[in-house]
């Protein structure tokens, strides 16, 4: 167990170093940032002074080592556009993204399991398919369009909820619902296919042959098996959400990481882009480790080594 964790931490370190290297190459390949940073009427002297101040006159390998050493201390340089640290900008946006991501994730997972398991135990296949159909329809609607419809209905027409920005719990409802219903459809579909797959297994017949009722077979015998694929998908999916949900954030003017990164890309603010990518990679690495550990708990056949 301990060896597994150590091995995974080393792997994670290598992954992150790789991400940083790619980031360094991208920043340098994008050209001379001095031109972006200086006003248009700057002289060649100004440019040379700035280059020296940023260490851009050093050989590339020294620049790389400096970049990596700074990164190790959590410093990815200053934003080209705003005179603050790039990492600071991302961290400042992180709470908003986490709030939205976790709310949407919770809505999706709790509703999907609640609805699917209830209808499965009750045994109404027709009702379950109807719910699935509604969820699929939601998934088929592009999120930006669905979000705009929500704003039109609940903010413009009914005037119940604020449309844009973040602050009160009321601000969270529309974006979380928009994103959460998309997640709901995803998990409902996954539950449907996982249960259908489990139904073909002989152990289900054995369980019924013992005299167990449908509820017991679904909840005690099949659900532990269904959880395995669910955990994998949920881990990856939560990573995607925490990495920023650009479309939803943009529609609702939600001050999250996704919007920050997209803005940084369009403004060629590379330190911020690298900081955002680094944060997303860290989240993915951590979630993958968590999924692997959960797997070992849920599936007795998995040995961590």
């Amino acid at each position, binding site marked *: 167990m301990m060896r597994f964790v150590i091995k995974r931490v080393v792997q994670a370190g290598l992954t992150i170093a790789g991400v940083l290297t790619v980031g360094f190459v991208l920043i340098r390949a994008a050209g001379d940032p001095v031109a972006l940073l200086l006003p248009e009427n700057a002289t060649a002297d100004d440019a040379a002074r700035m280059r020296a101040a940023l260490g851009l006159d050093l050989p590339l390998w020294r620049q790389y080592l400096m970049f990596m050493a700074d990164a190790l201390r959590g410093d990815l340089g200053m934003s080209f556009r705003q005179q603050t640290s790039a990492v600071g900008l991302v961290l400042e946006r992180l709470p908003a993204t986490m709030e939205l991501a976790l709310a949407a994730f919770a809505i999706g997972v709790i509703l999907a399991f609640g609805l699917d398991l209830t209808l499965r135990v009750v045994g109404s296949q027709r009702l379950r398919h109807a719910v699935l159909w509604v969820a699929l329809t939601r998934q088929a609607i592009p999120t930006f369009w669905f979000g705009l419809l929500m704003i039109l209905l609940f903010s413009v027409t009914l005037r119940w909820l604020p449309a844009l920005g973040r602050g009160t719990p009321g601000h969270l409802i529309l974006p979380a619902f928009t994103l959460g219903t998309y997640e709901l459809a995803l998990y409902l579909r996954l539950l449907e296919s996982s249960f259908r797959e489990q139904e073909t*297994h*002989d*152990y289900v*017949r*054995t*369980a*019924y*042959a*013992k*005299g*167990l*009722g449908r509820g*017991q077979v679904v909840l*005690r*015998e099949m659900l*532990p*098996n269904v959880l*395995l694929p669910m955990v994998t998908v949920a881990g990856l999916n939560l990573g995607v959400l925490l990495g920023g949900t650009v479309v939803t954030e943009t529609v609702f003017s939600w001050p999250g990481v996704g919007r920050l990164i997209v803005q940084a890309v369009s403004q060629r603010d590379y330190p911020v882009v690298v900081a955002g990518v680094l944060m997303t990679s860290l989240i993915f690495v951590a979630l993958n480790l968590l999924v692997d550990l959960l797997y070992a708990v*849920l*599936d*007795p*056949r998995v040995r961590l080594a």
Partner: protein
Amino acid sequence: MSDASLLSVSDLTIEVATRNGVSTAVEGLSFELKRGEVLGIVGESGSGKSITMLALMGLLSADSAALTAGRIRLEGVDLYSEGITRYRRAVRGGALAMIFQEPMTSLNPVLTIGAQIGSAIRQHQPQLSAGEVSARVAGLLALVGVPDPERRCRQYPHEYSGGMRQRAMIAMAMANEPKVLIADEPTTALDVTVQAQIMEVLAEARARTGASMLLVTHDLGLIAENADRVLVMYGGRVVEQGSVTEIFETPRHPYTIGLLRSLPAIDREQTSLYAIPGQPPALTERPQGCVFHPRCEMSQGRSPCSQERPPMRAFSSDHASACHYAQEARRWADDLASRLAETAS
């Protein structure tokens, strides 16, 4: 129905939904199982043995198979009469318990063996405390010869070998001391040496509880060694039934004769084996008349075989055959034996 009859099946017909519409998988099946008896059921794949066993357990899947006629009575009570759901739940895993063919996949991979046997006990004896249940689980595992049961009941199926898993399945089936044990090909998936052990375990468990057994198999050797009576099924019907001695010594149906002659025997002057020509009919293409007639070498194209369904005719108190020419069967069997002996020399 005699007093000794425990399980009685009469005129059972099971229809299944196939791609080409509804087909009859089992037609007019009748048999009786006496107390303490082992009834062997033999037949090729597709003869309807397994689906009959699922019908007995009330496990036919509702959207693909249905029992359309006939009765299944356990101690005189019709299992498919009104209020079936409740009664079947009490019967399943209680009075009737089943052991399946594939011990590798028939256990839940993420639950411990102890939990899986325990849930079978709790389902039918909810008054037992958790401690009593785990003591019974350990006792059952000891009964079926799983060593160190206290430790092994906390293990998962993947930590058990195939033979051990089948022992665990037997323990699960015996959990509520069933009156009838249905063993559907219990040893097919196992090594020959393990097969013998499993049959011994089954015999011991039955001796302890007095359970009767339906032993479904395509292995005639297993029947000869373990069954009291035999039911030979072909194409969804019973073609011959009787005591093991009579069926093995004086078979009265060309299909049974063919089956017996297709097995090697060390006490026979025979080096080549008989092969029944053709293939068993597909569910949707079962022939008119006698289901076996297209493959029957005794029939020689006689018209009654392809026109009329042969009725079950009794030859002794405990031997009946569904063949129009059953009286010729012994002579044909002798001819076949000498032919096989000739090709040997």
